[in-house]
């Protein structure tokens, strides 16, 4: 596969969240506000890219029987580094994200990419694949986070967007947007729109 398609396919046609339906739990958990969604996305990009490279480098020396354990060790190491960095430089956000940075280790996208791509490809394409999938994941996170924060809190990145006169006229923030069920509905809407533009992704009736 050409490097270009390895990098760009996960943005849309092969998106890990809305096509492969992986990593849904973290999409529900961290998108109530836009800022943690962006930080989470960046963390996943970093962890995914480097774990893909590392696994790809040692792919021929990993015994097949224990490959999942080796992958987990690599991912866990990277997650700890990211978590420590966030606590050092972005303490507030790391508190908002709480356990979800740690739970990147259980994110299905990571194991999926390691198993499906890094175990069978050279380091450079693996790096591109990791970054591409991470970006694909981040795109969805940002879209969902955007709508949830805008409609649920009336703010974006903490700044008031919905003007005060709206509230005076009777507008009320939608409390359901803050709750996880609405994130699921939003992801469903993105999938709906995406598939109506990409007819080849639609299941045969």
């Amino acid at each position, binding site marked *: 596969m050409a490097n270009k398609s390895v990098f760009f396919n996960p943005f849309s046609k092969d998106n890990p969240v809305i096509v492969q339906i992986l990593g849904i739990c973290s999409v529900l958990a961290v998108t109530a506000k836009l800022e943690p969604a962006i930080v989470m996305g960046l963390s996943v990009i970093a962890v995914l890219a480097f774990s893909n490279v590392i696994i790809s480098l040692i792919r021929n020396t990993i015994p097949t029987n224990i490959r999942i354990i080796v992958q987990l060790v690599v991912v866990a190491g990277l997650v700890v580094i990211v978590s420590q960095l966030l606590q050092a430089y972005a303490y507030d956000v790391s508190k908002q994200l709480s356990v979800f940075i740690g739970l990147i280790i259980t994110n299905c996208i990571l194991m999926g990419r390691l198993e499906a791509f890094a175990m069978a490809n050279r380091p450079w394409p693996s790096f591109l694949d990791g970054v591409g999938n991470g970006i694909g994941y981040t795109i969805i996170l940002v879209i969902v986070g955007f709508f949830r924060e805008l409609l649920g809190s009336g703010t974006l990145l903490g700044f008031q967007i919905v003007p005060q006169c709206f509230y005076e006229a*009777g507008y*009320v923030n*939608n*409390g359901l947007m803050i709750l996880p069920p609405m994130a699921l509905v939003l992801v*469903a809407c993105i999938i709906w729109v995406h598939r109506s533009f990409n007819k080849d992704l639609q299941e045969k009736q």
Partner: protein
Amino acid sequence: MSKLRNYLDKIKPNFEEGGKLQAFRSVYDGMETFLYTPKTTSAPSGAVHIHDSIDSKRTMIIVVCALLPCFLFGMYNTGYQHWLAAGATEFPFWELMIYGFLTILPRVAVAYIVGLGIEFTFAQIKKEEIQEGFLVTGILVPMICPAEIPLWMLAVAVAFAVIFAKEVFGGTGYNVLNVALVTRAFLFFAYPAQMSGDKVYVATNAPFGYGEALADGFSCATPLGQIATQSGPSIEFTGIGGNIISTWDAFIGLIPGSFGETSTLCILIGAIILLAAGIASWRIILSVIAGGLFMGWIANIFATPLYPASYVPAVDQLLLGGFAFAAVFMATDPVTAARTTTGKYIYGFLIGAIAIVIRTYNTGYPEGAMLAVLLMNCFAPLIDYCVVQANMRRRTNRLKAKTSQQ
């Protein structure tokens, strides 16, 4: 009547493929089949079909008729509570009715316009007949909300429910969840300040300038809303002005509450209409009541000051809040209920029991009927599956026993 038929036939060509009003084909089709039983049958020639005159459009219209007593009473009660809140001592019947009517009219109109608009659009896009399911939902929705729910919230909630609870599943007859209750659940979780608390259940505005608006901040909680503030073994509910609400008041329904749910008497009249017409299942209604009584009785036995609602007598539990309305009009929705006979008993009983469990033991939610019905909607297919499987197993075993004897 033949004039109407002739008129419909005359304008029909406009709506067919290539006609100038082609875009409104689904609307025309809907109106025509609403007014007249369709001529077409499933087999065009040869086979003989006997059609009952009852189809889903007529089913729906009977449900709407059954809802009318509650609706009329809701109009009166909205006015009554408003007059009471204004400190009036006499209650002129027609003025009360007009006040209630003017308050609820915009809500009904918004629910129908938004809901039917979406349904017509979907029918047109998918080139299907319009589905009449919203006929009932549109009147149910304003009846299970506070009378003065803001119009735009109602519009958002109806749009959400019709699209995500119904159309994405394939339209009327395919929905897993009761659409009216999804609307209410959306409002309940999205705009809790407008759907619960002590400020929303008495109409205080002057709709279209009729009547007088009351001061902001007037408050009177519904009986179930008052439970949280009580302790002790004797629970007393008070209406506006501090008069005590008796079991009889709760039965008649002159208490604060959602528009159509307060009067158990009118709900009973509706239930009789539904049962006489053979539309609702008496099994479900009966088992919901049984479940509610059973759970209310259990709660009474283990009553504790920690959960004040556990002191409420089981019979009062049935009369207060939306329990009776949910039992008669929500649980019996044929699309979302269980379909097997045994399944209906299980489904109904669990709705009744869970509604009281939520009411009593979850102090965050004073009313549990909505959540109980929605939860059991999700489980109805599973209940049916288990009942059918059990039946199959029993019959196979019987067959085996028979063949081994021979």
